[in-house]
C-alpha cells in the first residue's frame, strides 16, 4: 500500500449561512489517480479551493505529506507541492512554451536580460520528464488545446508539485489527445505523483482512476475502488437514486411519418463532405461520432451560422436557401449550442429577456414592446419546463447550467420552432437535470416537433435516438436504426476513416 499524501477529514464550510460542505473528506495516495465525482454543486470545487488555500475552512483537518496544514493562499499550497490544472487554461498564447512555464520567475542574464536560451533548456528537461514532444520555443497559441494542457502540466511539475489536481482536463480534448494525456498521467503515476481527477465522464474515470470518491450536497458519500465498481453504482452514489434511462428498444417514430428536413450533398471545406440525410416529423435523429467528426459543423451549416460551399436543404419537401440564422429561424429551425455561454445566453440579462429574445416582434403592440406580456409568456413556458429560478427577472448568470439550458429551450418553444438541433444538450449539466432534458426531448417529439441531437455520449445517443447517424472525418459513415445502434457498432463507424460511406 502506497503512502497517503493527502488526508482531508470532516471539512465544513459555509457561505453566508448556507452550508457548502458538511463533513467532506478525501484521501489520496502517492502514485494514485483519484477521481472526485459529484453533480454540479456537490462541493467538489469548494473542497479543492480549500485544499489550494483559496478558501478558508470553517473546521476540519487537512494533512498534506504527513503534516497538518492551513494554507492562507495559493502561493503557500504551491510551495507545499500542490498544483491545479484548470478547465480553462490560464496561459499566454503569444508567448513561447518556455516563457509560459517560467513566467514570473524568468532566468536573468547580466542582471537585465531575460535568458531565453536557458529557459528553453530547462523547459526541455521538464517536457522530457513529463514525456511530451513539444519544442520549448514554439508559440503556445500554435499548439492544440491538448498540447497546451501538457505544457501546463509541465509547468506544475516545475514547481516540484507532488500532488496535481486536474479539473475536467479532457473537456476540450480530442480522443487522441485524451489518450496522450492519459499516457502522461500514467508516467507521472509511476513517478509517485498523486492526482485528483475531476470529471463527469464515466468512461474516462474507468480508464484512468484507481479509486473514486463521490460527493453529494457537500457531503462525503463514499470511496470505492474503480475496478470493483460499475457505472450504475457510481451514478447511484452521486444522485442517491438510479436514473439513467434504458436504451431505446425501437423507434417511436412511425415508419411513414413525413420528412420535414432533407439535406443533400452538403459540403464545406474539409469538415463537411457530401453529407446527406433526412429527418422525419416526430423523430429524434442522433448524431454520433468522435470529436471533430464534423457534426457541429453540419448543424451550423443547416442553421445558416456558417456558409456552405454546396448542397441542398429542403424543408417539408421544398428547397430553401438558408444563409443566415435569421432565415433558418423563419423556416422554424432552432439551434441550441453546446457552448451556451458563448452562443446561447445573454448572461447579464434576465430570464425573461433570454426567453423571448427570438420572438420579440410577437410582443410588440402598437409600436411598443409589451414587457408584461413577454414576461407572462416567459413565465408560462419556463414553468412548464420546470426551470428553477427565484423570479423571471433573475439574471441568467445566477442560474445553474441545467436551468440555463432550459431557458434557451424556452426561447425556441416561444418562437414555436419545428426542428430543434440540440448540440450536446447535457454537456456541463448535472445528472439530475440530464434526465429531465431527456424527458423534455421526448415530450417535444410527442408534440410533433423533430429533433437532431448531437452527442458524444453513447449512452445518451442510445437512450434518446430513434435513428443514429454516425460521422467520421466530415463524412456520414452510417445511418443505423436504433436496434442496430450498439456501442460496438457505433464506434466501428465512428472510426471508419477514409470514408467508405454508407448512405
Amino acid at each position, binding site marked *: 500500500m502506497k503512502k497517503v499524501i493527502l488526508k482531508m477529514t470532516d471539512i465544513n464550510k459555509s457561505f453566508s449561512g448556507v452550508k457548502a460542505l458538511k463533513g467532506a473528506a478525501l484521501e489520496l495516495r502517492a502514485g494514485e489517480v483519484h477521481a472526485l465525482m459529484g453533480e454540479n454543486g456537490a462541493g467538489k470545487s469548494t473542497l479543492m479551493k480549500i485544499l489550494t488555500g483559496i478558501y478558508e475552512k470553517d473546521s476540519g483537518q487537512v494533512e498534506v505529506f504527513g503534516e497538518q496544514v492551513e494554507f492562507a493562499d495559493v502561493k503557500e499550497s504551491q510551495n507545499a507541492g500542490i498544483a491545479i490544472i484548470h478547465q480553462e487554461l490560464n496561459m499566454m498564447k503569444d508567448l513561447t512554451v518556455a516563457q509560459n512555464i517560467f513566467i514570473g520567475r524568468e532566468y536573468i542574464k547580466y542582471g537585465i536580460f531575460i535568458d531565453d536560451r536557458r529557459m528553453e533548456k530547462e523547459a526541455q528537461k521538464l517536457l522530457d520528464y513529463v514525456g511530451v514532444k513539444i519544442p520549448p520555443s514554439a508559440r503556445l497559441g500554435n499548439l492544440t488545446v491538448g498540447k497546451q494542457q501538457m505544457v501546463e502540466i509541465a509547468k506544475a511539475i516545475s514547481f516540484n508539485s507532488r500532488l496535481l489536481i486536474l479539473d475536467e482536463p479532457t473537456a476540450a480534448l480530442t480522443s487522441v489527445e485524451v489518450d496522450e494525456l492519459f499516457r502522461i498521467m500514467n508516467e507521472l503515476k509511476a513517478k509517485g505523483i498523486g492526482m485528483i481527477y475531476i470529471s463527469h465522464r464515466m468512461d474516462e474515470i474507468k480508464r484512468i482512476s484507481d479509486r473514486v470518491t463521490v460527493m453529494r450536497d457537500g457531503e462525503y458519500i463514499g470511496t470505492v475502488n474503480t475496478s470493483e465498481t460499475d457505472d450504475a453504482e457510481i451514478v447511484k452514489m452521486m444522485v442517491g437514486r438510479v436514473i439513467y434511462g434504458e436504451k431505446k428498444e425501437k423507434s417511436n417514430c412511425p415508419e411513414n411519418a413525413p420528412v420535414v428536413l432533407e439535406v443533400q450533398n452538403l459540403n464545406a471545406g474539409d469538415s463537411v463532405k457530401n453529407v446527406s440525410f433526412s429527418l422525419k416529423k416526430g423523430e429524434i435523429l442522433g448524431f454520433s461520432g468522435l470529436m471533430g467528426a464534423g457534426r457541429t459543423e453540419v448543424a451550423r451549416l443547416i442553421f445558416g451560422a456558417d456558409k456552405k460551399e454546396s448542397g441542398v436543404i429542403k424543408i417539408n419537401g421544398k428547397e430553401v436557401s438558408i444563409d443566415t440564422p435569421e432565415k433558418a429561424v423563419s423556416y422554424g429551425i432552432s439551434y441550441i449550442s453546446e457552448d451556451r455561454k458563448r452562443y446561447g445566453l445573454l448572461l447579464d440579462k434576465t430570464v425573461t429577456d433570454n426567453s423571448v429574445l427570438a420572438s420579440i416582434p410577437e410582443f410588440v403592440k402598437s409600436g411598443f414592446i409589451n414587457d408584461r406580456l413577454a414576461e407572462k409568456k416567459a*413565465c408560462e413556458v419556463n414553468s412548464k419546463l420546470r426551470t428553477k429560478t427565484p423570479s423571471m427577472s433573475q439574471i441568467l448568470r445566477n442560474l445553474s447550467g441545467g436551468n440555463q439550458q432550459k431557458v434557451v429551450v424556452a426561447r425556441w418553444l416561444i418562437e414555436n420552432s419545428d426542428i430543434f438541433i440540440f448540440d450536446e444538450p447535457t454537456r456541463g449539466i448535472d445528472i439530475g437535470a440530464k434526465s429531465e432534458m431527456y424527458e423534455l426531448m421526448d415530450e417535444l417529439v410527442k408534440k410533433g416537433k423533430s429533433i437532431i441531437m448531437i452527442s458524444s455520449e453513447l449512452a445518451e445517443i442510445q437512450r434518446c435516438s430513434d435513428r443514429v447517424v454516425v460521422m467520421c472525418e466530415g463524412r456520414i459513415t452510417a445511418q443505423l436504426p436504433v436496434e442496430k445502434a450498439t456501442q460496438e457498432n457505433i464506434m466501428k463507424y465512428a472510426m471508419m476513416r477514409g470514408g467508405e460511406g454508407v448512405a
Partner: protein
Amino acid sequence: MKTKALYDNSRLKNILEKSKQNLIIVGALAALVLIFYFLNPNFLNEYNIISMAQSLAPYAILGLGVTFAIATGGIDLSIGTVCIASSVVAGKLYTDGLIPLWAAIPVMIAIGGVFGLINGLLIAKLKLPAFIATLGTMMVSRGLSAIIVNAPNVFYPTGTWFNRLFSNNNGFPSGLLWVLGFTLLCMYLMYKNKTGRYILSIGSNEEATRLSGINTEKYKIAAYVITGVAAGIAAVFWSSSFVTVASATGNGMELDAIAGVYIGGTSAAGGVASVGGSVIGAAMLVVIRSGLNFVLAKYNVSVNSTYVTYVLTGVIVVFSVLIDILKNKKKK
C-alpha cells in the same frame, strides 16, 4: 398562481432598482450645483441658469446618440467632428446663398446620417474595431469639412426664428424642450422598440443574438446611424447658439459627450444603457464647466477654467465607473 405573484413582485423591484440608480446621479448633480452655489452664490443667477440650459442641448443630444453605439459594446469617436462638419458645411451652403436657412437643418442631419452609415458599414460589415473605424472618420470629417468650406469661419444669423426655435426664445432656453423630447424618443427606441432591444442584446452577446435569428449587422448599423443622425441634430443646436462656427471649434466635444454617457451609468462593455443617465451626465459636465468659471473667478485663481474642468471631469468619470465596478463585484 404562485408564479404570477413572483414576477409581479420582481418587476416592481427591478423598477425600483433602476430608479434608485438614476436618483443617485440626479443627487450627485444636485450636490454639485449646491457646492458651486455655496462657493459662489452668483453661480445661480438667472442669466447663468439660462446660459447653462442653452449650452446643454448639443452635448445632451450627442450623448443620447452615442449611447446607442456604446450599448452595442462599441464607441463612436467621430460624433464631435461630424457635428462640427455638419454645421460648417451647411453653414457654408447657406452663407453662399445656395440654400435657404431652413434647408440647413436637413442637410446637417443628412451629413450626420451618412457618417453614421459609413461607421456602421465599416464596423458591422467589414468587422473593423469601432475605435479604429470611428477614429478614422473622426479625422476624415474634420479635415474634409475644412477643405470643402475653405474659410476660417461660417456665419449663422442671430435673432431669427432659427435661434428662437433651437436656442433662446426671449430668455427661455428652447433647447431644453427639445432635449426633453429627444430623451423620450431615445427611451422609446432603446427600451420599448425592438431596435434598442436588439442593440442591447448585441452588446450583451453578439453571437448569441445572431444565433437567435436576429440580423445583428442590420441593428449594429442602425445603432451607428442613430448616433450619426444625433450628431447632425446636435449641429442644429450648436449652429443656432453661435454666430460663427469654425472647423476648428468643438475640439474634444466627443470626449465630453462620451464622458457624460459613462457618468450616466451606461456600461462601456455594452448591453446596459441608461438613456436618462446620459442626459444627466451631460448636464453635470455643463454645470462643472460653468461652476468652475465662477469659483475660479471669485477666488482670483488665475488658471484657465477649461483645464480645471478637464481634471475634474476626468476624475468624476473614473470614479463613477469605478463605483459601478465595485458595486457589481459586491453583488457577485
